[in-house]
């Protein structure tokens, strides 16, 4: 859709809503309930992102090819995440001794520069 074909959203209203969401994302974690922290901090971050992208970046008026570009980016991010998650979260296999040694030295803050580089 061309720029002339849509009316501008009410930017100030969007900004006020974003500030309200920011306040909630700060106050929610103060209750120190982990699931509520994740819901308020990260859930609201996703909502704020969608609002900025849709209204300020005019993504809701943009042509499908832009959506396609962004979808590809996030799909590959997902591939990256799940591709390496097993290696990082479940440590076994080759060179496991070296990895555990590295974790131990990180835990007690005794890593040498060589171990950090490794």
């Amino acid at each position, binding site marked *: 859709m061309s720029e002339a074909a849509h009316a501008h959203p009410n930017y100030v209203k969007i900004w006020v809503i974003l500030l309200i969401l920011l306040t909630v994302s700060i106050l929610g974690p103060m209750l120190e309930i982990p699931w509520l922290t994740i819901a308020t901090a990260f859930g609201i*971050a996703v909502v704020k992102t969608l609002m900025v992208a849709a209204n300020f970046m005019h993504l809701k008026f943009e042509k499908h090819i832009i959506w396609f570009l962004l979808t590809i980016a996030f799909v590959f991010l997902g591939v990256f995440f799940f591709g390496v998650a097993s290696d990082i979260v479940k440590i076994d296999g080759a060179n496991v001794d070296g990895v555990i040694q590295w974790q131990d030295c990180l835990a007690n803050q005794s890593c040498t520069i060589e171990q950090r580089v490794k």
Partner: protein
Amino acid sequence: MTLREGGSPPRTFAWKILMTHSPIATRRTVTGIPTGRLAVWWVLTSEVFIFGGLIMCFVLYKLNGAPGFEQASMTNTPAGAFNTFVLLTSSLTIVLAHAASERRDLKKTFNYIWFTIFGGLVFMVVKFYEYTTKIFPEWYHTPATHEPITILSNVFWSFYFTATGLHALHVFGGMVIMGMISMDVLKGRNLQRVELIGLYWHFVDIVWIFLFPLLYIANF
């Protein structure tokens, strides 16, 4: 280019492009999207990989219980929250600059761009304060309340300084480009660039929207 007999040049498409001094890429569109805007979206897509990859690694290490992540409680949450407010507000001012540029209101466009640059400056000052409280704690308290914290202190601080430093570089770059575009705006030239830098600036805002809860709030 050779001249025809009689001295007049052939009026080919390429010749017309040459005479208008504008690159062909800015006027050709296959997608129906102005080339500049399409290019900015391409840049932003590549930026998704840069910051997205960094954030994914952070999440993986945190899920794995890597040591040092509990030190997220040492980050300055009010400063991070204030910077979120500043960036959200600067996103508003740059989109208002875009709206003003569409009305060809050059003065308002210029002013809104400089409000945005000021927002970026405030962000950088707060970031400087945060960095120095970590790296040079003795500047603020004598004796220092904690050991100096650097990018080598542990995995959490490596992520903290890498992610926020890379983000701050993007903020700085955006400020410089906005300053250059504002000079063109005064002359009424290249007003479409206001929208392009706006897209970039909103992306920088979005990256911070994710860095804020990751680094400042999720300290469990």
